[in-house]
């Protein structure tokens, strides 16, 4: 099996794997948000950026190749990743203490893993009304990090195309597939993969709030990258 090095450790890979996939499989938790094992690499959050031959690249879209010398756990990259997570926090409206997703949220978990203590940048406080039209689901756009996982899941797995993105630049935003703009008028179902794939607290099931108490949630028990393992 061929291998490359990650911070000096040998990482084996199979043909077609990305640097991120191979690193995760070998137990090296490079922080990431928009990447998901079931979906093609997206490359939008940039949190998985690594340094190869002096060049910064997103490890999710970088094909693993024999002999690469990849840097990941450096101060420089930590600061970059902290900054990116902070940009995501100030872009939306994230009030973790009152969010149902707290403890299950990847943005929060990656933030903790990277020692992000403050948003640092000025808050942008966007105006994003909540869509509670659907009988079983609620959409709180305030927390959307635009990772397109729901878009991809709805198109590729559920075959419904219930979600998409519109706008450009900072006005880019999630939309639903209905002329009314309301989730209730789409064909989305509460059992869809798109509903459960959201890494943050946008797509939530009604009536299920706090079913798992705070303190017993995934990231209450283990840090990002060590989910399901003993801390």
């Amino acid at each position: 099996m061929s291998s490359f090095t990650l911070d000096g450790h040998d990482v084996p890979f199979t043909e077609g794997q990305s640097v991120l996939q191979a690193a995760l499989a070998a137990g090296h938790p490079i922080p990431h948000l928009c990447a998901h094992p079931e979906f093609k690499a997206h490359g939008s959050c940039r949190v998985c950026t690594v340094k190869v031959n002096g060049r910064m690249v997103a490890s999710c879209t970088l094909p693993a190749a024999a002999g690469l010398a990849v840097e990941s756990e450096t101060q420089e990259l930590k600061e970059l990743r902290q900054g990116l997570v902070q940009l995501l926090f100030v872009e939306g409206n994230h009030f973790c203490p009152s969010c149902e997703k707290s403890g299950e949220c990847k943005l929060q978990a990656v933030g903790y893993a990277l020692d992000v203590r403050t948003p640092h940048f000025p808050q942008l406080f966007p105006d994003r009304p909540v869509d509670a039209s659907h009988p079983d689901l609620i959409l709180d756009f305030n927390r959307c990090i635009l990772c397109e996982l729901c878009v991809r899941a709805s198109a590729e797995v559920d075959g419904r195309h219930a979600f998409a993105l519109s706008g450009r630049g900072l006005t880019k935003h999630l939309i639903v597939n209905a002329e009314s703009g309301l989730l209730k008028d789409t064909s989305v179902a509460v059992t869809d993969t798109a509903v459960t794939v959201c890494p943050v607290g946008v797509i939530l099931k009604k009536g299920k709030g706090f079913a798992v108490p705070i303190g017993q949630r995934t990231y209450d028990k283990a840090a990002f990258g060590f989910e399901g393992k003993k801390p």
Partner: protein
Amino acid sequence: MTPAALHALLEKHRHDPTRLVQILREAQDVAGWISPPLITEVAGHLGVPRARVEGVAGFYSFFATQPRGEYRVLFSDDITDRFHGSERLRLDLCSQLGVEPGKLRADGRVSVGVTSCTGLCEQGPALLVNEHAIPRLDDARIAQVAELIATRHPLREWPAELFVVDDSIELRGWLLGASVAPGEALGHALALSPDAFLEQLAKSKLRGRGGAGFSTADKWRSAKQAPGPTRFVVCNADEGEPGTFKDRVLLRRQLDLVLDGMTACAWTIGAQRGFVYLRGEYRFLEAPIEAALAARRKAKLLGRDVLGHRGFDFDVELHLGAGAYVCGEESALLESLEGRRGIPRNRPPYPVTNGYLHQPTVVNNVETFASVALIALHGGDAFAAVGTPKSSGTRVHSVSGDCAKPGLYELPMGATVRALLDACGAVEPQAVQVGGPSGVLLSPREFDRRLCFEDVPSAGAFVVFGPERDLLDVVVNYAHFFAHESCGFCTPCRVGTTLLERSLDAIDAGRGTRRDVKEALRLSRMLRDSSHCGLGHTACNPFLSLYEKFKPTLERRLSSLDFVPTFDVDEALAAAREVTGRDDVKAHLEDV
């Protein structure tokens, strides 16, 4: 829009979803804006998810998803337009029409806004009315436009002289000066085998004129060798870099050289179809290009058996963009050509193997294709003999800003900045922006540097700043440009360009401190290191150039206080005053 009209429009485009951007453009022409029911109709007929159509309509700035009036006026907001008074003229037009800037007038008839550089920098200020360009604005022209709108004169009956765009050629070389018949260069290319022509191209050492300077022969060879049932040739005529307008003139004066170059590419790599992706701002070139394509089909320069070569079939389609600088990035351009949002793709794979419809595709700049035609005419060695060892041929520079003779200057590669400054009659310039906002700002110490890939590469823009200009204005204008044009795909550029813009705005407003400079530096590093495409990588260049080369200009504008709020505290309370219905002295904060 009547169902019959929509039906005819969709028929014309063969109900082909790859033509979505064209369909929406033409539908908007008729309907005035792209309403939610129109989106539903279009999606239904094309058999694509409605949300996809809405996503495309929401991406391009020329698409109106809210009513914008019968007359949609957009002032070009390049820094050179501002130098020539575009701000005052815009406000004048607003007051003459009784419309608030950026808003639709109460009667729903007219709106006046701004748009990124329209590529008429040497004859600015300019505006677009319903995407039709009017250059050389002055008080008289503004009054005339106001009158035409006030009297609801239909746009097609406006005086033609308003829309006359000059070519402004100041210095001709063998490209701008060429006078050859359509197809002559192509004939020379087709006299050689595809491999032999590729050989000539390799000898010429031609490098792409669109920015990156990639070897054209290498690109064509990769596309030729890539497996695929079909191949494509794409001419990048998006020319969105502020300050660049050479492609506009090449497409008018030397269109047949460009099309000869594209056809020679098809011959070389084995392509059957080609596209010219023209920026929406250059709509005035649509009719002449369509006419030239028709003439070439008649003359057997396009179509079946081109120039009598059996089995060599090639045709070219024109596509118009709709206001998105990022669509000049080749993979975003391909997405747009396929009828989607213009988001740059992940690479690898590259367009040469997975381009249009994921088939091998060559994307080259307008000037690159025109240069290919010169190589066909004069041979690879003759081309390589001009310029410098690593930058062969000539370069067409778009010169604007503070100089006596703005316009196009064709010089051999490797000419010095000073030579061009002298040629255009610049007096005591304090700086030059080479290559547009994504390029570099040069100080007088650097005027002996050479314009070529070995030294200062350029996408063709050359903007001169005279001694009176405030370079911070320039950098602020460019920061707004990038924030407006970010496609929003990746985090650093989507959020970082806006935060950088705000830091610079604070400095510009006299509320900036050293902390803002530090923040801007941090954001710049993040943009450069982690953005997904060239737009984000270069969005920090204007600020970094200013910081590195003109520090006093920046520091003069910093407030000396240690802490200054980044926003106006009193203004921030306006909303609270409104809800509480208070406006007394105690409801205001001053001098905090």
